[in-house]
């Protein structure tokens, strides 16, 4: 009972395409033909839906993986580079204050900071292929870091000879660090943070195309079943029902899975990445304030601001204001790093180390005031003991502040990881599942139509 073309053969040869179209047109006039076309279209729609869903989900899952495995660690590395450089500068200045020969512990800490910075720079360079901005900053850091190290060694050599030229070299090295290396590290951190934000956006973007294709496929299936019902008065065609069910499952799974993933990722951003950013900046502020405090004693009034204040003391004050607000007592208000970190921490385990760091900062400010008073009275030795002494000094307070911030950072990193992993888990299996279910749905649609077609034999 095959239908054949009823058009009379033309005088010339016709292309297969034209002949096929003629066949379709003829087929469309008969119910079986129409049924075949409908079956083909339905199968195609379901397969397209499945494909688009799988493709979009794969993209988003890859972006989420990038966030957790790639961008966030690189951002953390950039923060570590920044911290290592600031710590190296602070440690070099501290070494000067202990006299002509530095202690072994300080030398080791300085060397460890430089090697950390170098190693992380190599890693960042290997991973910077997508970001010309990051590459430019890495190049600047690579060329500036050896020169800085050379200046510090010259400072040390002169200091060993007992020459004040050593102090001048140290101040010059500090200036190079502050005006060239730290801004480059900051720009690298910002570039990595931008990449992280881009990955977050890519992972959280709603899969509108897949959802649209799903709606279209289910709509077409519904229309086909309604047409079937109207013509044959049979409500359920098993194949078509199966196809509709599997498409609906894929759509629901897609929407739900993506929403859960989005929630997890947003949570990891709000409660993890943002806190980490503020805490990293707080740590750097603390380091730079400590460096300025050390340099005040190295420079001994050699450099002044325009207003006649000691340059490094003014730097210390502004660093402290950034870190914990302008006051010297009590809570940090908003608008400074510790206050922001406290506001962003969402559980007690995150707030406790920040509060402790704040207490230590207030202690640091108090001890610093005593050291300044001693230095202004001309008692340099006492001021020195109050700054780098083993107990009761600002050095002790600073170490405790750094430890508190480190604990908070570890906690926030764990929170980030768990939230982001929860988000990723929601997307797991969705691509494969969508593909399989869509294939099953297409088969079901074809079988359902075929069942109906079979009635025409």
């Amino acid at each position, binding site marked *: 009972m095959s239908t054949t073309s009823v058009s009379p053969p033309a005088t010339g040869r016709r292309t297969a395409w034209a002949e096929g179209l003629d066949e379709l047109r003829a087929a469309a006039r008969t119910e079986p033909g129409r049924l075949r076309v409908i079956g083909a279209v339905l199968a195609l729609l379901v397969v397209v839906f499945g494909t688009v869903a799988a493709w979009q989900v794969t993209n988003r899952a890859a972006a989420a993986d990038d966030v957790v495995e790639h961008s966030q660690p690189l951002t953390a590395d950039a923060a570590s580079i920044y911290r290592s450089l600031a710590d190296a500068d602070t440690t070099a200045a501290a070494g000067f204050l202990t006299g002509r020969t530095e202690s072994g512990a300080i030398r080791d800490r300085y060397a460890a900071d430089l090697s950390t910075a170098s190693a992380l720079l190599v890693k960042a360079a290997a991973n910077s292929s997508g970001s010309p901005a990051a590459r430019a900053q890495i190049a600047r850091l690579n060329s500036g870091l050896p020169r800085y190290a050379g200046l510090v060694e010259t400072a040390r050599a002169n200091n060993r000879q*007992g020459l*004040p*030229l050593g*102090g001048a070299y140290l101040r010059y090295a500090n200036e190079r660090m502050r005006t060239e290396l730290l801004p480059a590290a900051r720009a690298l951190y910002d570039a990595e943070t931008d990449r992280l934000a881009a990955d977050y956006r890519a992972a959280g973007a709603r899969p509108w195309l897949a959802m649209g294709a799903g709606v279209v496929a289910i709509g077409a299936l519904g229309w086909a079943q309604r047409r079937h019902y109207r013509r044959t008065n049979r409500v359920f065609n098993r194949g078509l029902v199966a196809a509709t069910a599997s498409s609906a499952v894929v759509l629901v799974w897609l929407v739900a899975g993506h929403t859960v993933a989005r929630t997890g990722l947003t949570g990891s951003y709000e409660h993890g990445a943002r806190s980490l950013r503020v805490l990293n900046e707080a740590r750097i502020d603390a380091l730079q304030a400590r460096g300025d405090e050390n340099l005040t004693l190295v420079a*001994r*009034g050699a450099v002044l601001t325009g207003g006649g204040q*000691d340059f490094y003391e003014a730097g210390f004050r502004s660093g402290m204001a950034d870190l914990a607000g302008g006051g010297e007592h009590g809570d940090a208000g908003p608008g400074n790093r510790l206050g922001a970190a406290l506001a962003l921490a969402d559980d007690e385990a995150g707030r406790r180390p920040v509060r402790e760091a704040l207490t230590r900062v207030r202690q640091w400010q108090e001890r610093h005031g005593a050291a300044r008073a001693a230095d202004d009275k*001309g008692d340099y030795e006492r001021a020195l003991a109050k700054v780098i002494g083993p107990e009761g000094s600002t050095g002790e307070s600073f170490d405790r502040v750094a430890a508190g911030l480190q604990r908070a950072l570890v906690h926030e990193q764990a929170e980030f990881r768990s939230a982001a992993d929860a988000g990723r888990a929601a997307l797991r299996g969705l691509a494969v599942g969508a593909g399989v279910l869509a294939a099953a749905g297409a088969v079901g649609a074809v079988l359902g139509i075929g069942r109906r077609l079979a009635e025409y034999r």
Partner: protein
Amino acid sequence: MRVRARGLVNLRAVLAPVASGMGVMAAAAAVLVPALGGDAARDTPGPGRVSPPAATHRTYVPGTAQAAPALAPCTARTAAESLRPSTEDGAAVKRIKEKGQLVVGVDQNTYRWGYRNPATGELEGFDIDLARAIAEDILGPHPPVVFKAVPTNQRIPALQKRSVDMVVRTMTINCVRKQQVAFSTSYFQAGQQVLAPVASKVTAFDDSLRGKRVCTAAGSTGETALRARPHGAQVLTVPNQLDCLVRLQLGRADAVVTDSALAAAQAAQDPTVELKGKPFTDESYGVAMNKDDTDLVRRVNKVLDDYRGGGTKSPWMQAYRTWLRADLPGISGPPSPQYSD
């Protein structure tokens, strides 16, 4: 005829004031020229003067009082004049004795003048030795001296606020400062000088600086002198004069302009640089005190007289040999004091 007469009358009326003015000028010239010319004639070398390497300096005859009234306006030549020495305990000296300590504003960063030795942690230098000598005279042997590090632009405010009793800090005596603080007699003669590497083509503060990058401390006398007469050099300023040596060593500058004493301190730290030419300005270093402490000024001048006395064995010469001779050779004695009363 009438016109000519009137013209003659007018001419006389015009000439009369001119003639009287010329007469006054002639009289003034007759009075003043011998005085000024006599001044120049007094410029003969006497014992205890600064010798040839500082030849552009003025030389002073010891003990010659300048015939100027006590309230003469300060000029560049008379700036180094101070009050006559005296051993009386006036109000300021009594105050120091009651307090039991002398607070002296010094530098902590100038090698050989006021410098904290990192090995011992103690302050040492030419200025420090002088401050200790003053304290010993006022407070007896092993005096409790408190050294306070004073940044350059806090020297005068610290004295005015009396947070220090005196400032011994390579401070140049000039008329502008004399309006705010009182100075002792000069204890060292210095001047702005050029410092450059030994192998450099720069020879002095002249056209050999053309096209070179010359470094100087911001806001210093050196910067003023350099901007007034740059000799075609590019001026580079840094916050502190020692930073100029850093720039020189790193190849970012070709020469440095600063006080000869500070330049000598820099040369002491780097054997490959040396002072070039001669000092091209004339600067005296003095001990600065609060303007009201006139008895302290007299006491310090007396201490300085003793410090200078004794020829080659004087404390001044001993301090010079300890701290300065290696880099500022050729000084045979301290500068002579000048008194205004």
